[in-house]
């Protein structure tokens, strides 16, 4: 599902300037289509997380980048782990 920029700003409760900064920081990585930035549900949930980290947990801007990078690594690890557990049950038994 593709979300157009105006829609995204509204649903993520962001202003244009903040969004530009977040994209520049690579906290958000929208797709570009027809010279227009388009967003997904994943970006929306990620924007929500960034807002909660800042507003509710008092994380400062430096911290956000660190947290997101570590979170991305955790999720990638989780994916690899779940693939591994699914694809090699025999090896786990014998090992």
């Amino acid at each position, binding site marked *: 599902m593709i979300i157009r920029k105006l829609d995204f700003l509204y649903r993520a409760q962001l202003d244009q300037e903040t969004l530009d900064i977040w994209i520049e920081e690579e906290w958000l990585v929208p797709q570009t289509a027809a*010279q*227009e930035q388009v967003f997904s549900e994943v970006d929306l949930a990620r924007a929500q997380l960034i807002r909660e980290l800042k507003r509710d947990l008092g994380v400062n801007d430096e911290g956000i980048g660190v947290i997101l990078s570590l979170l991305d690594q955790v999720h*990638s690890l989780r994916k690899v782990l779940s693939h591994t557990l699914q694809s090699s049950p025999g090896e786990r038994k014998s090992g």
Partner: protein
Amino acid sequence: MTDPYEILGVAPTATPEEIRKAYRRHAKKLHPDLNPGDRDSEERFKQVAGAHNLLSDPEKRRRFDNGEIDASGVERPQQQYYRDFADRSGPGDPYENASGFADFAQSNDIIAELLRRQAERARRAPGADLHFGLTIDFVDAVNGATKRLTLPGGGSIDVTIPAGVEEGQILRLRGKGAPSRGEGRSGDALVQISINPHRMFERHGADIHLELPVTLAEAVLGARIRVPTPSGPVMAKVPKGSNTGTTLRLKGKGAPQSGGGCGDELVRLKVMVPSEPNPELEAFLSDWDPGPNYDPRRDMQP
């Protein structure tokens, strides 16, 4: 729900600052996105967030302290957390970061294979589909046309409108969507068609409806007249003794149907008397006797 002060672990006399700090302390530990694998954290976080929601609002807190409201019903609505998306995101996820395990790839065949497959999938992942709307004229919808769609960011694509396209129909243009992040195919452009109304024609499925004014003489005596259709005017025969409401069916003059063939054009006649006063017509009608049984309002008698 239990006592919100208890949930946050603060005294009932706590200052707003103390409440905020207590909430942050809990949230840092419990926020579901900071605990991707812990399904229980969500329930506990909801309680903490609900308690904070109640106590951080001075008005709500006052009413709670006075016993006017209880602690139920202040929980935040169900939220979709980032972790729910991150764990099921597909190939080409821009947030994927393999640096947490890339070093294992050298010593472990399974991991190396997984990494290779993941990279391959990401490389081949297609671009996203893009949605557009396009408004076209009635006649173009019936006959088909090529329209240029201007994209929001500049640029354009040519859209071939098939004859007989219907209101709300979505045309899929392969490969005209967003490009792939890697080397996969581009996504598709999905163009939803809306059709402007026409001042004369109306469309009902594949049939075209038209109301056509005829003169008194044409209706009474019969005539051959020109009838507009979406593909240009055709000659049609008005039978002798026609009336307002008489419908002519022009076979195959409607819109093309999906199963092949075309609908019809249905021409509903509308008899017009001259708008200017006409002494001859008046003289004729005063002498004219249609007979005792003629009553156009007979069916309306109670």
